[in-house]
C-alpha cells in the first residue's frame, strides 16, 4: 500500500512530463480499440450485406456449383431439395450471368430470378429502398439495382433488354420494362443485380423448375452451423435426383472477406506494437530520468529501512501506473469513438461505394464495441510500461545508500 501510494504521488510530481510520455500510449491504445472496433464492424458489415441479400443464414447450392461467388453456371442448376423436416423460412433463386442493354449502353449483371413470397420471408426487403414497384406476375418487367441503373442511365418506366443463356446453353434475350430501382444493404448487388420474378426468369432461361440457390433463415448466424449440420444429417439437403446440395453458413460464405479483416487486425496489431515500442522508449527514458533526479530520495528511503526490492517495486509500479493510466485514457477515447459509431454508423460516400462496387459491403459501417481489445490493450500497455521500467528500477535499487543520501 505504501509503495502504491508513493508511486501514484510520484507520477504527478512532474505532470507535464507524465502527460507527454503518456501521449504515445494513449494514441496506441486508442488506435487499437478503435481499429478493432472498426474491423469488427467491417466483419458485421460483410455478414449483414450477404446475409440480408444473398445467403440468409444458410446458402445451399447444387453439388458441383462453384462457391467462389464469381461465376454463375446455369448448366449446374438442379431441382432443389424439398428441405424435409425444415420448419424455418426458405426461398429459392436462380443466379445467372446477364447482360442488360439500354439503347447503346450495355453492362454485365448478375441476374436474380426470385420467388417473391419466399424472398420476403427470408430477406428483409422492407428495409431496402425501392424506387417504383417490384415486377408483377406474368409481366415482362424487371427491377434493377440502383447502381446498375445509374451506369446505364435507366429510370423507372424505361425499357431494357436482358440477355442470358438458357440452361441448355442457348442465347436468349427479352425486353423488359423497368419497374423499380432497388437499393439493398449490399453494394455489390446494387451495382450489378437485375431482378426478375421467377416466372419471368423461367421464360428467359428455360429453367423447368431448376434452381441454383436455396437460402434458409434459421434464426441467426450463431446457430447456423449447428442447424445446418442437423439438417444435413437428417437428409434435408438431398434433392429429388438423389444428389446432396452443398450447404454453407453465411460466415463460411464470407470467409474470404473475414480473412482479409484478420489481416487488417494483424496490421493494426503490428502498428500498435510499433507505437508501443516507441512509447516504451519514452517511458523508460522518463522513469530513468526520475530515478536519476531522485537519487538522494532513494538513498533516504533506503536509509529509512526500505528494502532494495521495495525500491525496485516502487519504480516498476510507477511505470505500470503510467502505462495503465495512459492506457485507460486511450481505451476510454477509443471506446467512446467506437460506441459513437456503433450507434450512428459511418456512412460511406457514393464514390466509396462505387470504388467498392465489386465487394459485398453495406453503405453504412457500424463499429462493434468489444471488451477484449480494451482489456487486452490495457494489460499490454501496463506490461510494456512495467518492462520499460525494469532498467531504471535496477539502477535505483542498486544505489549505495551512503552515497545516495548525499547526492546533489
Amino acid at each position, binding site marked *: 500500500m*505504501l509503495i502504491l501510494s*508513493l508511486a501514484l*504521488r*510520484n507520477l*504527478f*510530481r512532474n505532470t507535464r512530463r507524465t502527460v507527454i510520455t503518456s501521449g504515445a500510449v494513449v494514441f496506441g491504445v486508442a488506435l487499437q480499440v478503435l481499429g478493432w472496433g472498426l474491423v469488427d464492424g467491417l466483419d458485421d458489415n460483410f455478414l449483414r450485406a450477404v446475409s440480408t441479400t444473398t445467403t440468409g443464414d444458410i446458402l445451399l447450392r447444387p453439388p458441383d456449383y462453384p462457391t467462389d461467388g464469381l461465376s454463375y453456371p446455369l448448366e449446374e442448376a438442379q431441382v432443389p431439395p424439398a428441405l424435409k423436416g425444415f420448419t424455418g423460412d426458405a426461398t429459392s433463386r436462380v443466379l445467372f450471368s446477364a447482360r442488360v442493354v439500354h439503347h447503346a449502353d450495355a453492362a454485365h449483371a448478375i441476374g436474380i430470378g426470385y420467388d417473391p413470397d419466399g424472398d420476403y420471408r427470408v430477406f428483409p426487403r422492407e428495409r431496402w429502398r425501392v424506387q417504383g414497384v417490384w415486377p408483377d406476375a406474368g409481366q415482362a418487367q424487371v427491377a434493377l439495382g440502383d447502381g446498375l441503373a445509374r451506369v446505364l442511365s435507366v429510370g423507372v418506366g424505361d425499357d431494357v433488354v436482358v440477355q442470358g443463356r438458357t440452361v441448355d446453353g442457348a442465347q436468349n434475350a427479352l425486353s423488359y420494362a423497368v419497374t423499380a430501382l432497388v437499393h439493398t444493404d449490399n453494394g455489390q448487388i446494387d451495382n450489378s443485380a437485375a431482378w426478375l420474378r421467377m416466372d419471368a426468369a423461367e421464360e428467359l432461361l428455360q429453367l423447368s423448375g431448376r434452381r441454383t440457390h436455396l437460402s434458409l433463415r434459421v434464426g441467426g448466424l450463431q446457430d447456423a452451423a449447428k442447424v445446418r449440420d442437423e439438417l444435413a444429417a437428417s437428409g434435408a439437403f438431398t434433392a429429388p435426383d438423389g444428389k446432396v446440395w452443398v450447404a454453407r453458413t453465411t460466415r463460411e460464405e464470407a470467409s474470404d472477406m473475414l480473412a482479409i479483416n484478420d489481416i487488417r487486425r494483424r496490421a493494426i496489431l503490428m502498428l500498435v506494437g510499433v507505437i508501443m515500442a516507441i512509447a516504451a522508449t519514452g517511458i523508460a527514458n522518463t522513469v530513468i530520468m526520475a530515478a536519476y533526479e531522485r537519487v*538522494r*530520495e532513494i*538513498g*533516504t*528511503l*533506503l*536509509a*529509512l*529501512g*526500505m*528494502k*532494495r526490492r521495495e525500491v525496485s517495486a516502487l519504480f516498476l509500479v510507477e511505470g505500470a501506473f503510467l502505462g495503465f493510466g495512459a492506457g485507460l485514457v486511450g481505451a476510454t477515447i477509443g471506446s467512446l469513438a467506437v460506441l459513437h459509431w456503433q450507434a450512428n454508423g459511418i456512412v460511406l460516400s457514393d464514390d466509396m461505394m462505387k470504388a467498392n462496387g465489386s465487394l459485398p459491403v453495406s453503405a453504412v459501417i457500424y463499429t462493434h464495441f468489444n471488451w477484449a481489445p480494451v482489456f487486452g490493450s490495457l494489460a499490454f500497455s501496463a506490461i510494456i510500461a512495467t518492462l520499460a521500467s525494469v532498467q531504471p528500477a535496477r539502477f535505483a535499487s542498486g544505489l*549505495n*545508500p*551512503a552515497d545516495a*543520501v*548525499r547526492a546533489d
Partner: protein
Amino acid sequence: MTSPVPGAALCQLVGVKKNYPMGDLVVQALKGVSVEVTAGEFTAFAGPSGSGKSTVLNLIGCLDRPSEGQVFLEGRDVATLSDSALGDVRARRIGFIFQSFNLIPVLTAFENVELAMKLSGASEKGQKERVEEALRSVGLADYMTRRPAQLSGGQQQRVAIARALVKQPALIIADEPTANLDSKNGAAILDLMRTMNADNGTTFLFSTHDKMVMDRARRIIRLSDGQVIDDERVEPSPTPVAAGG
C-alpha cells in the same frame, strides 16, 4: 523494541578500515578506527572535509560496510549482516538527520514522519498519535499537512528530527545537521536535539565542523586523514533554551 541501557556500549568500531576504489587507485578513507559509543551520548565527530567523519557515521548507521575490522551495534557485528538485515536495523534502531533534510517532497510533514514509522514495521495501532506527538514535540503541530516545499529550512529539519525520533531508535545519526541552516535556526535545532537527548536518553552522533555543534556536544571525537586524533569529553552545558524555527 528494547531501549539501550544508559552507559552501556551502544556501538563499537574495532580496527575499522574503509577503502574506496577510484579508478586504478584505492583511497583509504579510514585507516584503522576504533571507537566505542555508549547509550545516551551526545557526540560529535569533527574534522575537516575528507577526514573520514561521514564514513564513520555511514558505518555506524549501517549504510555501508567496512573493508576491514568490525562494527558492533548493540552487540551485533553489523558488517556481517545481509543488505536486507541491515535495512531492518536502519528501519528499527537508527534515525537519520541529514544536512539537506532529505524529506520526501511529495509527502506532507505528517506523511514523512509516518513513512519512517511504517518502514520500521511498528504496529498500526496508535501510529497516528505517535506521529502527531513527534511533530508536536518539535513544534510543528500546525504544519502537519504542509509539504516540504511549503516549510522553511528550519521547519524541514524539525520534520527530519521528528521522523528520526518517532520510531524511538537506539541511535540518531545527524550528518552536518546545521550546515544548511542560518545560525539562529541551527542553534534552535541543536538545542532541540539536546533536549531530546536529555529528556529521552536518545543517543545522538553528529558529523560536523561547525563550532556551534561542537560547543553543545558532550564528547568530541576528532578525525584527520582517516584516523582518530583526539577523543575529548566535555562537561555538560546548562540546559538549552529552544529557539523558534
